[in-house]
């Protein structure tokens, strides 16, 4: 039943004015709201599926539901911006293995330790977000950088997880920070 809301929203959005963008503005706003509600409920379902695919860790760690960040397209994600440590789950919807450069919005001035499921350290690069993005009206985010790392060999229709932890070590931050060059003239 929790998929029903997204299915219904997708059904409504088959109408030609939604497909082509020729609806009146208040109708477009309604389409967006229907889709957002449907996607939010589907996220809950996916989170539940993840919990069934993972080993029972009760007693080792508090059980926290994963959070999806639908505003990653404007480099905004409250969990990665505010948490001192978090786990990233990278799900591969392709039916074959792949690699993927993960980009996570993070605040300025901090380095990160990223560890894969085997306990190996993963190479990280901190990339400044473009100035134009930081200034767009309505964007509400503290992220100034993208934390980039390579997720290798994500299994088909499966996932990899990475442990990401802030580091107070300024040396790590400097090593991970991209070199930035503004050509003169």
């Amino acid at each position: 039943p929790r998929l029903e809301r997204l299915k219904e929203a997708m059904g409504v959005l088959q109408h030609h004015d939604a497909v082509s963008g020729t609806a009146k503005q208040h109708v477009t706003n309604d389409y967006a709201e229907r889709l957002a509600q449907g996607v939010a409920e589907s996220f809950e379902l996916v989170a539940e599926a993840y919990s069934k695919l993972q080993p029972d860790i009760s007693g080792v760690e508090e059980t926290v539901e994963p959070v999806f960040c639908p505003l990653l397209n404007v480099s905004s994600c409250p969990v990665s911006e505010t948490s001192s440590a978090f786990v990233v789950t990278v799900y591969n919807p392709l039916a074959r293995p792949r690699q993927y450069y993960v980009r996570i919005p993070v605040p300025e001035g901090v380095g990160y330790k990223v560890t894969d499921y085997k306990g190996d350290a993963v190479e990280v690069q901190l990339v400044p977000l473009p100035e134009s993005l930081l200034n767009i009206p309505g964007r509400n985010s503290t992220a100034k950088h993208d934390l980039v790392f390579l997720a290798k060999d994500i299994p088909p229709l499966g996932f990899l997880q990475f442990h990401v932890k802030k580091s107070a070590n300024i040396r790590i931050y400097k090593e991970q920070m991209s070199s930035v060059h503004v050509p003169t003239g």
Partner: protein
Amino acid sequence: SGEMELVGKNLALGVDKDTGLLKSIGVVTPNGITMVKVNQTFLRYAGMSGNNHNEDHRASGAYIFRPNGTSAQEISAKANITIIEGPLLFEIHQVWTPWVSQVLRVYMDQLVLEMEWLVGPIPIEDGIGKEIVNRVVWPDIVTNNTFYTDSNGREIVQRVKDFRPTWQLQNLEPIAGNYYPVNSRLILSAGPDVSAAILTDRSQGGTSLDHGHMELMVHRRLLHDDAFGVGEALNETAFGKGLVVRGKHYLLHSYFATSKDCDFGCLHRSVGEHIMLEPVLSFTPTTATTHTWK
């Protein structure tokens, strides 16, 4: 040659020292770097304000793309650039105006140039609606007015400028009359050995108006209703300022298909699949140490 070159593991980019615009793109092999000339910039069409009672002068609006003139105008001749480098990727941040900017991005292990554009809010204080396009020009690709786009459910379809396969076309709209839906890619081909493709992250309108040209519309803001039924102008004023759009284009050339196991068709289909089915990220705050979590 007046270019700044950035070289990665697989791809290299050349940027004009004076204008900050993309001038060449190359593939890195054990034998050296093969560079191909390519120009890219953002342009704007002024929307027809129009007279909806006259069929030839209807306004550009939600249904109709109708520029008020024959060619696109420069937004700016130059882009200010910042270069970002590191072990996993390099980027060139380009700013044409406060409302048009782009990141050219090359990941070390990939064979595709990622172009992440950010356009808006489109200014309308001059009373002119604007339609913004990304134009890529490969000067050495001779395409004889032919290009290919994919339309929903129809796979890749051949398009010929000012031509329709089933009737005699008298094209009264030299720009809009050659625009076609692009669901995932626009391809140019100059024989079996030289091809180029641009892939989109969403459906857009696109065309090729001259040899080696690729053009995709990324954003539009218009001030008049086109009288086809919507009843309002395509003038979205989010936050009182107008919408901002951010998206990606992916640029490929047949020279990038360096592996014997994967030719150009294989390369753009593979990239297309990766864009269509991008990994889904989720985040779980934790207090566990790395060791405990492992």
